[in-house]
């Protein structure tokens, strides 16, 4: 786990206007129309039109509804993506995933059900 000192990993993603830093804890709802990068902790609900990036220091205990999701951190909650869900090697995900495209990398830890039914939602 990242401590407060070693924050700001070198990931200034282009096009990402919103960043939740490592020490930030949000308890509630986040909604928006832009890409969102999470390095901190979010509990509650995330609703986005674009992409969500959960970085390795990111911890999410929330239901997620977005276009794309890319998880390198921890997610506890259900994920619904209109396009794609990508579980990277280091991630830990517990919850159900519904999306037309789901990628699970070697090394990813996942517990839950997968639904690729395109006509669902």
């Amino acid at each position, binding site marked *: 786990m990242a401590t*407060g000192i070693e*924050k*700001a990993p070198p990931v*200034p993603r282009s096009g990402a*206007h*919103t*960043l*939740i*830093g*490592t*020490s*930030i*804890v*949000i*308890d*509630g*709802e*986040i*909604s*928006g*129309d*832009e890409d*969102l990068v999470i390095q*901190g902790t979010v509990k*509650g609900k995330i609703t986005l039109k674009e992409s969500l990036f959960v970085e390795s220091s990111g911890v999410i205990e929330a239901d997620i509804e977005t276009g794309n999701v890319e998880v390198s951190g921890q997610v506890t909650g259900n994920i619904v993506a209109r396009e794609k869900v990508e579980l990277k090697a280091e991630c830990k995900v517990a919850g159900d995933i519904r999306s037309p495209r789901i990628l699970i990398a070697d090394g990813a830890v996942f517990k839950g059900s997968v639904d690729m039914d395109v006509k669902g939602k």
Partner: protein
Amino acid sequence: MAISEGTTIIGESFLVNGSLNGDEDLTVRGRIEGTLTLTKTLVVEPTGVVKAEVQVKSCVISGAVIGNLTATESVEITKEGRMIGDISAPRVIIVDGASFRGRIDMGEINVEGAERPALARASSRPALRPPPRAAIGRSEDDEEAEESAALAERASAAVKPPPVPVAMGAVKRKVIVRRK
């Protein structure tokens, strides 16, 4: 505005509803509703709206803040900033152009010893009396010498209170001067 690494940014289209806690700087371009607690600086950019109970170290408001704001260091409302709510901070800066409604508490203030500036109003009030006769008389006499008239005018202008209500006598005299 340069954004350093490790700064959290809430983008323009974002709405965060709930509580937000953190130990780093936060830049708000979108909306935050609920409670906001930071141990560093909060920057509300012109597009940002914060409707929350805010507790921070310091705060720069260029956008809108609705709610009570407690800062351990300082609060600054810039010329684009709007705020409704109470501020509690040892240093509060409100610049010209900022809008604010609420109360400010800067903590314990030592009022003793700090002398109130005396009201200088009475002494600075322009006299109702007409300008000295000498100036007027001279401008009346030396019609041909324009520079001397101008001088006199300048001299009288220095003494004359410009737009104050003038006594009746002064008005009459003025009329005479104009007739020449």
